[in-house]
């Protein structure tokens, strides 16, 4: 058969060509649609969170500022003299005594006094909140609500403020902040990194570079893969049994006579950090193994060829070219740890503490736990601060990742130019 006829007549070829083109276009559309769908949901997620962070809140004061100082509708307008007067006359005797004991009224700053008056005298309370979108579109509903509730007033506010970041926990959503949870998260992630990075990279180096290809080692590698798929709550149970209970003398700090907080027992930062460390260990091991696998054998051979030992080959040649991949894997693993809630709840992280962690033997709470706890409350304002905390967590993640990626790129650049 001649070559011409093997592929059919001219019109057959043209028809086939059209079908092939149509096929390619169809698949292209499918891929574009799936990408668009993913982007759409991501946008929806961001919008729904941001929607809760800004918007109207209708507040009511227990004592209106104008009742304290005539003709002044906001504590912000009070003069120094008026602030001191209100503080001395309106604070309950118990609060006054405590406040005076901490720092005499006369020596306090204006801002300080304003906060005092707001908190103890005016006592604003959130009646209802609206999301950003509703605030723009349902102004009438807000006005109607104010009309129904005499003495209430609306204020358009951002729930994410600098003072939200630096304030500690409070029962009042207007005053609550995430400082304690933020510090808890940072401490935990530090312990997780210090534990999981060296152990994970070490294990991966052993498995990839040293371990012989025996049945036992193959089973070991397979199981590490399986471990990375174990639900995180299981790690919480493990952490509870091992770190909180069995290793209590160590994890509570009793062994080191470091009673920073002796109510914590084993439910400390070090227990939480180690539990999350176990959780991300398989991820770091797998990522590091993949990074080492990607280094061509010819590089190892050339190092052996000039009389390098196995360790010199790994340390001076293999690790420098795989370090950026290893760090990428570690960044991903730590990001996961930063967002984990379940295992920390299981090991008994505190849900309501206002004492900042002071070391690795302190009790703690973390941002995800704080978010979970706030979003579970019925009052509307807690949902808003939960959203603000979510935004803070995302910003923290972005910050952490960009610092890590920047460091990684600097290392990679240095490696390329290395003399």
């Amino acid at each position: 058969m001649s070559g011409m006829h093997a592929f059919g007549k001219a019109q057959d070829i043209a028809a086939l060509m059209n079908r092939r083109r149509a096929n390619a276009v169809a698949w292209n559309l499918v891929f574009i649609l799936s990408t668009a769908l993913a982007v759409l949901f991501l946008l929806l997620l961001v919008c729904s969170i941001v929607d809760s962070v800004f918007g109207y809140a209708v507040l009511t004061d227990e004592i209106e500022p104008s009742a304290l100082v005539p003709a002044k509708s906001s504590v912000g307008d009070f003069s120094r003299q008026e602030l001191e007067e209100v503080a001395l006359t309106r604070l309950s005797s118990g609060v006054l005594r405590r406040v005076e004991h901490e720092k005499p009224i006369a020596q306090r700053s204006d801002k300080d006094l304003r906060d005092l008056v707001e908190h103890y005298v005016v006592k604003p309370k959130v009646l209802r909140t609206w999301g950003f979108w509703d605030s723009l579109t349902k102004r009438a509903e807000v006005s109607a609500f104010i009309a129904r509730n005499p003495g209430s007033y609306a204020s358009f506010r951002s729930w994410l403020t600098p003072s939200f970041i630096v304030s500690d926990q409070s029962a009042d959503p207007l005053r609550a902040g995430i400082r304690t949870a933020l510090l808890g998260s940072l401490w935990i992630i530090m312990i997780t990194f210090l534990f999981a990075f060296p152990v994970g990279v070490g294990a991966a180096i052993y498995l990839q570079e040293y371990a012989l290809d025996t049945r036992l080692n193959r089973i070991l590698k397979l199981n590490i893969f399986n471990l990375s798929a174990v639900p995180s709550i299981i790690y919480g149970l493990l952490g509870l049994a091992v770190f909180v209970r069995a290793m209590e003398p160590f994890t509570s700090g009793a062994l080191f006579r470091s009673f920073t907080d002796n109510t914590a027992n084993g439910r400390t930062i070090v227990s939480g950090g180690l539990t999350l460390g176990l959780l991300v260990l398989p991820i770091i091991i797998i990522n590091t193994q993949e990074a080492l696998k990607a280094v061509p054998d010819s590089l190892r051979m050339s190092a052996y060829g000039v009389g390098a030992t196995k360790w010199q080959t790994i340390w001076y040649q293999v690790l420098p070219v795989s370090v950026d991949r290893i760090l990428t894997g570690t960044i991903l693993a730590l990001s996961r740890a930063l967002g984990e809630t379940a295992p920390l709840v299981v090991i008994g992280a505190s849900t309501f503490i206002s004492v900042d962690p002071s070391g690795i033997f302190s009790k703690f709470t973390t941002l995800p736990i704080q978010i979970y706890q706030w979003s579970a409350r019925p009052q509307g304002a807690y949902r808003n601060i939960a959203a603000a905390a979510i935004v803070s967590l995302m910003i923290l993640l972005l910050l952490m990742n960009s610092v890590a990626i920047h460091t990684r790129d600097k290392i990679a650049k240095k490696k390329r130019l290395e003399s």
Partner: protein
Amino acid sequence: MNNHPAALALHHLGAATDVPKERPILQLQQVNIHYGQFHAVKDATFDILEKHVTAFIGPSGCGKSTVLRSINRMNDMIRGSRMEGKILFNDHDLYADQVDPVLIRRRIGMVFQKPNPFPKSIHENIAWGARINGYKGDFDELVEQSLRQAALWDEVKDKLKQNALRLSGGQQQRLCIARTIAVQPEVILMDEPASALDPIATGRIEELILELKNSYTIVIVTHNMGQASRVSDHTAFFMVDEKRTGYLQEYAPTEQLFLNPQHKKTEQYISGKFG
């Protein structure tokens, strides 16, 4: 130097006959190599002479590279490889229990088929091997001297801080040779060092080999019979039997092997009847 292959070969063959002393630096005795169940090389026995160039030729799968890698115990790196027999290096058994393969690889260096410089600067490529082996001298001097010996100095002397991967393939291969020289080995093993290079770069590597044999013993695996005849003093011809096991068919001074082969297989191979 005249680059014409025939001229090179004649020049070389003439010179090979009046080498004064012929001391075997490596002695292979009944070398058998297995990879797991597979018997890769059987009963290879021959001597490699000091400051000579010895070429290993033969068809694919004949075990010539395997034998080469067994000389500096690079085969140890391959899982499941097993070696029987003896390889004596300056009369010491390389496979004796107390021998450290790392030390052997410093004294018996290796240049690979594909140029594989370290992904570091040119300077570091040469200095690193010396540094990890405890070199105490002046590194700049060592780098210059090694690059000069590898005929690369003039091309790279102004860019020693540059990444070695930016050099051309031929330059990279000469850098790999310089890197091997820098740890001052006695033997240099070359596994098809020019097979990934163009003819001009190949010619330069061949010139370099002829230069280097004044100071080093060189063992070269090559598929190119012209190259074997141009650069080597002795040639080992390996064949493969019906069970795919390689064996040494003929070993002789290069001139004799090419002009007057003793075996039919050798004659067929060098005349291009198979391979």
